[in-house]
């Protein structure tokens, strides 16, 4: 079966900086592929390479078997693209924007209106169809962006940080829409995001750093190597507790989460640390309430991989 999206050894350099450095991955039909990584990792550049906005220095990208540079028209009819920045016409109304982009995609005049109505209803903007795009709230703008990306019924959605600067409720809405699209219309999605809770909703995630794919897999696979390696530590005072934890030879990393700490420890050292740390903490005057292993999250993986990537550099 043909992959929905195929990236093969993509390279793109800007003024000697390897923005994308030999990136390869596949997205199968019906998958939501999450692209995560720190700012400047090359997420946006990759998205633009996938939609044909940039020409790669080497390597190639295919959408359902169509090379995005050699067969741009065939490839692009399959793509719906939502750029990171609002990229619609603020001085046109919601409906005018949809009409314009429908016409750009060669949708016949007789068909654009029913499709526009359907899609506005789908994203929940049907009551705002005569409002100028610039007068929409941030979340509504993103929904209009999504509607525009969907107007020509693409089979692949490329979403570049679609929920940046959007409130949590709208983010939730937005994800429900994406999940419905995948379920109902069989759309495949590539979404870049800096939010780990969003990444955990994806079928698979790929972690990029400095233009390279470091690891990929289902959220479960990606976090599996950290199973048993994350401990939660609750106690008081937090600051002294943190100092003690950092000093422990088996602790690789300490993160503060509100009133508690997450410790990442060396593989297989869980029992040792749980035995040793409470004693150490007591001698340092920390009132420890709890220490226990917890399930690793994508956030833990993200932090671990970012640190590794920095060390390599």
């Amino acid at each position, binding site marked *: 079966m043909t992959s929905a999206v195929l990236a093969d050894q993509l390279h793109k350099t800007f003024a000697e900086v390897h923005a994308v450095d030999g990136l390869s991955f596949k997205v199968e039909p019906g998958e939501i592929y999450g692209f995560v990584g720190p700012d400047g990792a090359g997420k946006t550049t990759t998205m633009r390479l996938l939609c044909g906005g940039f020409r790669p220095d080497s390597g190639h990208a295919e959408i359902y078997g169509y090379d995005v540079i050699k067969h741009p028209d065939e490839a692009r009819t399959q793509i719906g693209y939502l*750029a990171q920045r609002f990229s619609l016409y603020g001085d046109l109304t919601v409906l005018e924007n949809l009409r314009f982009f429908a016409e750009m995609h060669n949708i016949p005049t007789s068909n654009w209106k029913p499709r526009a109505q359907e899609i506005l209803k789908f994203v929940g903007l049907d009551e705002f169809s005569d409002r100028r795009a610039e007068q929409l709230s941030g979340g509504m703008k993103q929904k209009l962006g999504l509607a525009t990306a969907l107007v020509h019924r693409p089979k692949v959605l490329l979403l570049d940080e679609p929920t940046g600067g959007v409130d949590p409720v709208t983010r939730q809405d937005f994800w429900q829409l994406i999940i419905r699209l995948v379920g109902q219309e069989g759309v495949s999605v590539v979404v870049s995001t800096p939010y780990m809770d969003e990444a955990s909703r994806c079928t698979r995630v790929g972690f990029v750093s400095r233009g390279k794919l470091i690891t990929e897999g289902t959220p479960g696979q990606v976090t599996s190597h950290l199973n048993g390696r994350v401990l939660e530590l609750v106690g008081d005072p937090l600051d002294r507790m943190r100092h003690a934890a950092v000093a422990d030879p088996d602790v690789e990393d300490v993160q503060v989460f509100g009133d508690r700490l997450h410790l990442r420890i060396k593989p297989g050292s869980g029992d040792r640390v749980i035995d040793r740390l409470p004693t150490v903490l007591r001698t340092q005057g920390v009132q420890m309430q709890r220490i226990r292993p917890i399930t690793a999250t994508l956030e833990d993986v993200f932090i671990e991989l970012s640190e590794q990537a920095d060390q390599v550099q």
Partner: protein
Amino acid sequence: MFNSRLWSIMRKEIIQMTRDRRTVIISIIQPILMLFLLGSAATNNVRNVPAVLFDQDHSQAARDLLDAYRAADYFTFSYQVQSVQEMRQLIESGEAKAALIIPPDYGQRIASGEPAQVEFVIDGSDATLASTALSAATLIGQAKSTAVVRASLESHGQSVASSSPIEVRTQVWYNPDMVQAFFMVPGLMGTILLQLTVTLTAASIVRERERGTIEQLIITPLRSWELMIGKITPYIFLAFFDMLEVLVIGTLVFHVPMNGSLGLLLLMSALFLGTGLGIGLFISTVAKTQQEAQVLGMLIQLPSMFLAGFLFPIAAMPPFLQALSYLMPLRYFLIIVRGIMLKGAGIEAFSGDVLALAIFCVAIVALAVSRFHKTLD
């Protein structure tokens, strides 16, 4: 073939234009303003220059001379003084710009047939005014002198058939009254066409990039040429409208003659329009923001205004600047427009300029199109 994407782009552009009323209103009013400012205020015609009379003679001959100066309308003798000191004060304070000094023995010398001298002082701080006043004063003086000679000869009973051995007759063609508007209106048409096409097209295309809308256009099957032509077309109409506006006001209000063929004028304007659009397009491939586009546009327009013969005649420029003016498409268009409107000339009269303009047009459009890509890099 009817191209629906092209039409959609144009329709979108027109909707955006109508919503951006300020730009449209400015681009319609601006030519009118410029026309009235440059056509009437900035005039080289010197009339009623305030002048001082220092008459030390008070003879009939002195009064005759004064009448000759008064009759010509160039000078108004609003001040009569009794000393060089007073005269100097009036000129220094700027109240008077010129002075006529008639020496005490003027009448006596004229009567006895001896050469008589009068002195004419001109404030040279305003060079344009001074040069015109100078030539006017000289001409009037010469005319009077000839008349005096003739009169004295006649009184001696001699023939006056050929009173002066050489006679120079000057005659101004095409604009005999040397009305500034006649020079300005055709020039303004060119300047306005250039400004609108360059600035507005460049800005409208750069805006797509600046606002990020180009990112969304990129993944559509839209072709570069469709984007280009679709965006430019509404501005072609706006530019033509403005040009006709100047033409109509120029002929009706300023009575600029339209001696040549209107069809030829429109055809030549279309050629010049193409050149301006090419420049605008080219700028849009270089500039990243609308501000950059504006600055680049000014960089093209300002030298054109000063060097292409719009405000100052090319013939009066130093050779280096004259050579530079060949690089400005406006130069050729101004020659063509003035030729058609004022001289009623046909295309054969300025075929070289048409050729130069055509070469410019093709070259800049080709350069711009080759650089115009619908990509993000």
